[in-house]
């Protein structure tokens, strides 16, 4: 545990100096600020940032995470030559990467909101949901990125796999869900669709945000399962727990791979 915290601390310092993290924070900040300048109030800015958090944030976390593990190869080998447990090393690498990415997200989006908070009302709950979902998605994406980077020896293939995974989860998957919904239109679809949604972390993040932004529409739906599930705190709890599982699962898989890998 002591090793892990020390590695995290080193990592944090290392990555905080990384210009890409800084650039990421700046891009998010400029984007948020631009949305405010384009005449949006707090609520509208949160809405516009929805797809940024659901699409752009996982893309950055996946690609950056994969590349990071390849770049850190020599450092990992050096560290593993020391009396440092592999579990501690892996946990340290992941937390040390996820922390700065999450901080960049919170800062990049949060700071413009703080700056504008005096001039207009900020939808605090929606913003908190947005940032919370963003942080969870970042943590899940970096864990998946590590799994991919450890799976493929070749850096180009690992990077390709990360891009492919993002494309699948962010775009193609919903198309398939819509296809299923259309093909099996005449059958009870609510439960299968909910299950399908839970199998994709990005969809889970989206549902979490829907529960905040579109309750009025969701409540207008007649089906009992959706109504029961999405209508109350149950949906929030279950979707949040499922997203946490999407962090823990890949972390466990990655950790096992890391422990067995022959560096």
């Amino acid at each position: 545990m002591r090793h892990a915290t020390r590695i995290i601390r080193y990592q944090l310092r290392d990555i905080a100096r990384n210009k890409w993290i800084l650039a990421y924070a700046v891009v998010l900040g400029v984007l948020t600020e631009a949305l405010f300048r384009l005449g949006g109030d707090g609520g509208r800015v949160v809405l516009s940032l929805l797809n940024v958090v659901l699409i752009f944030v996982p893309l950055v976390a996946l690609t950056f995470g994969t590349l990071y593990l390849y770049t850190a190869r020599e450092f990992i080998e050096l560290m593993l030559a020391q009396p440092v447990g592999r579990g501690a090393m892996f946990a340290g690498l992941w937390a040390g990467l996820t922390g700065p990415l999450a901080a960049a997200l919170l800062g990049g989006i949060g700071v413009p909101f703080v700056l504008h908070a005096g001039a207009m009302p900020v939808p605090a709950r929606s913003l908190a949901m947005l940032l919370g979902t963003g942080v969870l998605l970042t943590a899940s994406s970096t864990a998946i990125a590590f799994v991919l980077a450890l799976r493929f020896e070749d850096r180009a293939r690992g990077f390709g796999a990360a891009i492919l995974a993002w494309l699948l989860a962010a775009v193609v998957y919903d198309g398939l869900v819509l296809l299923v919904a259309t093909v099996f239109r005449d059958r009870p679809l609510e439960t299968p669709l909910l299950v399908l949604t839970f199998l994709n972390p990005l969809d889970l993040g989206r549902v979490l945000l829907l529960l905040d932004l579109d309750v009025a529409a969701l409540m207008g739906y007649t089906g009992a399962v959706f109504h029961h599930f999405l209508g109350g705190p149950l949906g929030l709890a279950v979707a949040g727990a499922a997203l946490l599982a999407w962090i823990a699962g890949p972390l466990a898989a990655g950790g096992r791979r890391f422990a067995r890998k022959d560096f």
Partner: protein
Amino acid sequence: MIHWALAAVAVLAGPPRQIVAGPGTAYPTLGAALAAADSGDTIRLGRGAYREGPLTIRVPLTLTGEPGTVLYGGPFTLLTVTADSVTLRGLEFRDIPPSAAEDRAALKVAGARGCRLEDLRFTNTFFGLYLSKVTGCVVRRVVARGTGRLESLSGNAIHSWSSSHLVIEDNDLSGHRDGIYFEFTTDSRVAGNLSAGNHRYGIHFMFSDGNTYEGNRFLHNGAGVAVMYSRRVRMTRNRFEDSWGSATYGLLLKDISDSELDHNRFRANSVGVYAEGTTRVTFTGNEFLGNGWGAQVMANAVDTRFLGNRFEGNSFDVATNSVHASSEFRGNFWDRYTGYDLDRDGTGDVPFAPVRLFALVVQQNPPALILLRSFFISLLDAAERVAPALTPQTMVDQAPRLRWAGDEAAQ
């Protein structure tokens, strides 16, 4: 004839009197005071709890209470007014148990004209005020608090049947089945009321032509507001808010014709406005904010027009059930509009189609709603917008407004 006869009696009986009634007076019960009163008299009913059987006011008189004047009911209609020109003021009615057999009310006015009912309070009553074949009555500042139990065990706060020329103003109604219920009630004005938290509808009317509804607030009622089978309805500056649920509507219009809705606000409802079988209904300068569906206009709604309204923050702006649906949209503000305005006249140069492809998908396949706000769905919508194939091309705003700066275009 009877009225003339009564007037004659009143003249014979001398000038109007003031009757002071209540505990410790010559008339300790309301029944005694009513029995003694002649036409034109004023009864001042003192503070106290009055537990009397069904009572009837048969002559024109004024009955006033003071804070703490409470009439307790039972399994019957507590007070019935059958005379014209009766004024009731400052009374509280309590505890009328529900009934499945009769529409018993705290106060019933039947076949009378020109009553004034002001500053009354109905607490825990089945029906609060029941107007039957009444003309020219004013109901003002009534506070009704229903039993708060099931829809089937509650009556309406203000119920009107076969009446006309009513003024229903500044009342505060909650916990009933319907806040205000009109059936065959015409040429009336309903203004400044708050109808909130009723089990079914904030206001519900049928076969009620020529009424005006102005500046009312209908908030979080069980099924919102539903109005049906009426002509020449005018709704102005009302607020329809927070009605959530399936088959729950900010405002449901069914078979409404030749009607105007202007400057109303529909906010945070599952469905802002639902229009079915309507004819020549015009929406001007209304605001549709943060609803699940801003407006659902069915294909059997004919000649519906949306002019200069504001659509913002709705999950779906407009939905319909057929590609053949047609409504006219002009000069509305849409927060989803992405067009440009080269000549800077405040009107977009590219038309806007408010019916998204996804709205159609969900209409036909409701569970697909789970894909709301998906990136893939945005791509589909964008593709449909560029090359429309499935959405009704008759529902297009040819002159969308770029900014919502109040409702100047609507005037």
